[in-house]
Structure formats: structure tokens, C-alpha cells
């Protein structure tokens, strides 16, 4: 692991990371890479987020869909756990609530494959500081 030795170093790493993330999005099959974030704080895990995450990783693989599934912290919608955020390239991220394995399956089949929205979308109701 390279050490970060100065502010310039840090900035360099940051821009490399950002371009890498960009690259990930705009790679060879830009239309295919789907990003899924699973809210994995205590509330999510307690309601089964781990199983959902494992399921999605396996199923994307099995169904031949290029996807990155990562974990993240609490999105704040604890009442609707497990929650996941799905970003299909070229579209706004969408948060789904009450995602069990069955629901995850529907999301992959309908939303990810065909772009059809499915029940259980949670509208985002906050502002991020970037927009300020």
C-alpha cells in the first residue's frame, strides 16, 4: 500500500479514484454495468440485508448481468429495511424498500433487465451538501 505523503498526493489519489469510478461506469459495456448498494447497518442486517446482498451477487453472476454490489451505511429508511439503491447506467439511482429475496429477484428481472419500475420505491427526501 502506498502512503499518502502530502496534500497533493491525497488530491492525486482522489482524482485517480474518481476517474476509476467513472471508468467503471463508462467501461467497455457502458449499458450493462449496474450498481447496487445495500444498506448494511444494524437495522438492515437485522432485517435480512446480508442474505439479500449475497443473493444479488450470486444472481447477477448467474444471469450474466455485469453488476457491482456493495454495502453502505444506514440510508435512514429504517422502517422499510432491507433497503437497496439500484443505479442503472444513464438513469437516476432508485431506492427500493422491504427488499426480501423474492423482491430482489423481481427487481433484477423487471427493473434491471427491462427498466420496468416495480412496487416499493422509496422517494428520496433529503438534500446532499454537494447541491448546496
Amino acid at each position, binding site marked *: *500500500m*502506498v*502512503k*499518502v*505523503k*502530502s*496534500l497533493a*498526493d*491525497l*488530491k492525486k*489519489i*482522489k482524482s485517480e*479514484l*474518481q476517474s476509476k*469510478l467513472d471508468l467503471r461506469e463508462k467501461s467497455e459495456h457502458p449499458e450493462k454495468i449496474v450498481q447496487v*448498494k445495500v*444498506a448494511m*447497518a*444494524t*437495522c438492515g*442486517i437485522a432485517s435480512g440485508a446480508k442474505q439479500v446482498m449475497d443473493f444479488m451477487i450470486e444472481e447477477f453472476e448467474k444471469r450474466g448481468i455485469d453488476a457491482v454490489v*456493495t*454495502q*453502505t*451505511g*444506514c*440510508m*435512514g*429508511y*429504517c*422502517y*422499510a429495511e432491507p433497503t437497496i*439503491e439500484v443505479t442503472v447506467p444513464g438513469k437516476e439511482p432508485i431506492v427500493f*424498500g*422491504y427488499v426480501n429475496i423474492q423482491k430482489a429477484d423481481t427487481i433484477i428481472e423487471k427493473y434491471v433487465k427491462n427498466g*420496468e*419500475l*416495480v*412496487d*416499493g*420505491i*422509496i*422517494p428520496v*427526501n*433529503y*438534500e*446532499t*451538501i454537494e447541491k*448546496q
Partner: protein
Amino acid sequence: MHLLVCGGTGCRASESDAILENLQSTLAENNLDGEVQVVKTGCFGFCEKGPIVKVMPDNTFYTQVKPEDAKEIVAEHVIKGRKVNRLLYLDPENKEHVADSKHMGFYKKQIRIALRNCGFINPENIDEYISRDGYEALAKCITNMKPQEVIDEIKASGLRGRGGAGFPTGLKWEIASKNAADQKYVVCNADEGDPGAFMDRSVLEGDPHSVIEAMAICGYCMGATKGLVYIRAEYPLAIERLKIAIDQSREYGLLGEDILGTGFAFDLELRYGAGAFVCGEETALIHSMEGLRGEPTVKPPFPAEKGYLGKPSNVNNVETFANIPVIINKGAKWFASLGTEKSKGTKVFALAGKINNVGLIEVPMGTTLREIIFEIGGGIKDGKKFKAVQTGGPSGGCLTEKHLDTPIDYDNLIASGSMMGSGGMIVMDEDDCMVSIAKYYLDFTVEESCGKCTPCRVGNKRLYEILDKITQGNGTMEDIDKLRNLSNVIRDTSLCGLGQTSPNPVLSTLDNFYDEYLAHIKDHKCPAGQCKALMQYVINQEACVGCTACARVCPVNAISGERKKPHTIDTAICIKCGACYEKCKFDAIFIN
């Protein structure tokens, strides 16, 4: 095209299911069901103006839609592409129709600073933190700013401690920086012991690096090379994520010796608490870390003078720290532009209890309870009536209907007889008995008092006993005076914040729900129907058809009667389990 119909509790109560069906059938009639999809969503958080229908991709936001409006939406919007003006949201300020939810005031109510990365980044990957400006604030401080300049920036931001007391953070750092010593400590208070609170846990689970970065900045300001995070052992996931984060920062050289080649050194260690509420009090916390009993001691000396191992120490709450990097990156001025005159920035609240959207929210200081509970929180569960909201945990009080429009900040909450506390908000509805609520908090305090001071150890126990007596229907009017007097004594003569604030739940329910106390004492009734000792199950002789279902389900055989003739309950035997009440198909059993 998509039509999103709210399927949240609030909108369903006002027939959003029928809207959904009507939309679907109207689309089918026009052969549009293949192209236009109708989708049921979760709560938009705008239940006050529900039912909500949103049209995508043009983001049109219809409010207060009725089932019969479905035809018009399809005919006008879907087929002709014209918005149905009368269903658009009317801006309360300039009385104009707002078509797009992005421009509605409501959706600007939450702003995420402390939670900026929660739910965005993978907390176990430092790179994701760095790609969102992570460690830039630290780098800026140690390479370009003098410690005093950083302190001045924090002071100018107006940030106050989020752990409860609201002490100005910049000032605290300044005091700690001025006390010279060979070793100093930065301490993060992650004890979070209030019932219903989970803000700090979520920050540590979702964005551990922001706390680490802030602690290093604090170390730079006060001249400390060591940081300690005091975290309760009941938070295993937060502990694991913190450990991973600390390791990653060390690998990158963002913790350790000679950070970014500046010669500044800082490292972190974790200390585990056993989950005692009193150990969240800073002096008790320090003693607990020293391996002593977790009991508070008199202040002064404050930790800034004599803290961990007798050295100057700065204790801050998790959320306080999480705000620091943003203040450095975006500037004190920006931060101070949010909030009220004396309380700047935002506050994270954990919404719990009888509310539709249980969860974590972050709003600017000065947001009203009404906005939090009815708009963001989606209102009360099952369409019941709002009764009170408890803030500040066992140290706080209940706020009621009349406080709904008070802008929330440190000072207003205290003036209303409660306090900010760490940010737990427990919402209560008409079914909650306020005497029982006060009793619940006292039960907690009695359990958690460290026992050092007599008023707190014995006095709270007596408060609990009196409250219990009242809920049993044996209270007298004298008991009310006793509650008040004893509360004042405990408040004035306890050593630490736990004892000093423990009577608050009693005093505030006495102030706001005096009638309910009276009903228990004088009429032997619990208006909310919660106090079992005061309830009686009775069978309405007219409505009872003698089906015997109740008699069969009663576990203690308290119900008798002949088949096809009205039954009766022997109240002397009845244990008030409610089984018969649930079973009766004829609504013949009622609670007296």
C-alpha cells in the same frame, strides 16, 4: 412513462389503492397499459397532502388525488401531455402551482451533513471516503492552517456539542489547547445510552472515517497525539467498521507518525464500555476508561484540565465530530448559514415510536416538530392521533400539540421543558398513557443510577414507587405534591447530569398531562386504556349472542353463561389478558 402511486400508510388510508386500480383500469380501457406502468411506492413523506401521485419521467407531483381523478390524469396528462393544474401542489408562500417535487419546500427540509456519507459509500473502503473529499480537511488543517486558525474556524461556525449539553465545540477545543501538558487526549463519546437513540451508531457504521478524521483534526488543534473512542460493546458492527477504518487510515499513513510529511503524529485506540448509561457522562466515561468504577466526579476539574490519566482531555460526541470535516471544507460561514441564531447547522434525530417512517433524519436546527413528525416522519401510525413526543431520553421531557410549531433548537427545547439530548425522538399516540411513560423512564433511571448520591439512588426509586401506585389506582392528591417536591430535591442535589435531569419526565408529564394524573387518581381510570389495574372487561348484555367463543378462550375461566344466552365476566377472576376482547365477533365486549 410511469405513474407512481403512494402506497404508504397515510395515503392508503385515503384510498390510494382505489386510485391505483382506477388508473390501471382507465389505462387498460385506452389500451395504454402496455406503455404506461402504474407502480406503488413507499411513503413520499408528504402525507399531509396525500394521496400522492407522481408522473415520471417529467417529475410531476400531484397531491390530494381522489380515485375519481384517475380518469382526468390519464385523459389529460398521459394522452394529451397537459398537466392537471388543479391537482398540483400549491406553494403556500407565493400561491403558485409547483409541478416538480424538486422545487417544493418540503423536499428541502432534510440536509445531510453528519450523515453525508451514510448510505452513499462503502464504510469499509477508505477510497470511497477519499473520493468524497475524505481527509482533505485534515490535510488542509495540518499543512495550511495553524491550530488556532482551525479553532477559530470551528468557533465561527457556531457548532455546539451534539451529545446533549450543547457546549460550544470551538471554545472547548481552545480551552483544551491552552492547558499545557506532556500528553493530551482526544476522546470520542460513543456510549449512546438513551433508549431509542441510534444516531451515533449509524454514523460509525456508515461513515467511520469522518469521525477518525475529525479526531485527528482535534488532536492537531489541542496538541494531542492520542485519541480514544469509548464505544459500547453492544455495538459490534460499529466496532468492526471502526477497526477496519483505523487500519486502513494507518496503511495510508493518515494516522500514525509524520502524517502527510508534516511531522504531526496522531493515532487512535478503542475502549469498550459495558453499556451503562451513566458512563456516557464524561467524567464517568473517563474513569471507566482508566479501569475505575464508572462513577461521575465533581466538575471542576473539567476533563479539559484533568481528564484521562489526569491529563487534559477533550471529550466530544460522535455526531459533533462528524460535522468537523465539512465545516473545514465548506467553511464556517456556510455552516453558520444553516440553523437558528444560537444553534447552527443540522441535527440528526432517530425517529421511533408510533410514527410511520421510523428512521434517521437530519434537519437544520429550527425545523419544527410538525415538519419532522408529519412531513418527514409521515405522520402517526394507523391514522391515530398524535399525543406527545419525547425528546432527550430519560433526561428530557414530553412535548405536546402546543409545541408542534416551535422551531427546534437547544434553547427552545429547554424553554419548553425538555431538552435536545442526543437526538432520540419517541412519538406517542392516543393509546399511550403518560403516567406509564413517566414510570418507564424512572424505571430506567433507577436501573442506571450509579448510586453515589442518595437523592438520585433513593429519590428516583421513591418517584418510581409513587408513579406505580398511581397506575395501580391507589394514588392520592398528596402523591402529586410529593412527586413535585421530591423531583425538585433530586434535581437540585444530585452530582451529575443523570440525577439532575432524571425528574424531567415526571415534571413535564405533570405539566402537560395533569388531567391524566387526575383521571388515574380521582376517577380510577386510565384514559389511554393502558393501566391494566384500572381496566375492566365487560360484556354488553344486549350485543352478546351467547356463542361461547369468549368463555372458551379465557385462560382463567372467568367467563360464564349458558349457550345462546348473554355471558358475564367475573372481574375478580379476570386477569385482563384481552383474549376474549380479540375473539368476540359481535363487538359485545368493551373496556370500561
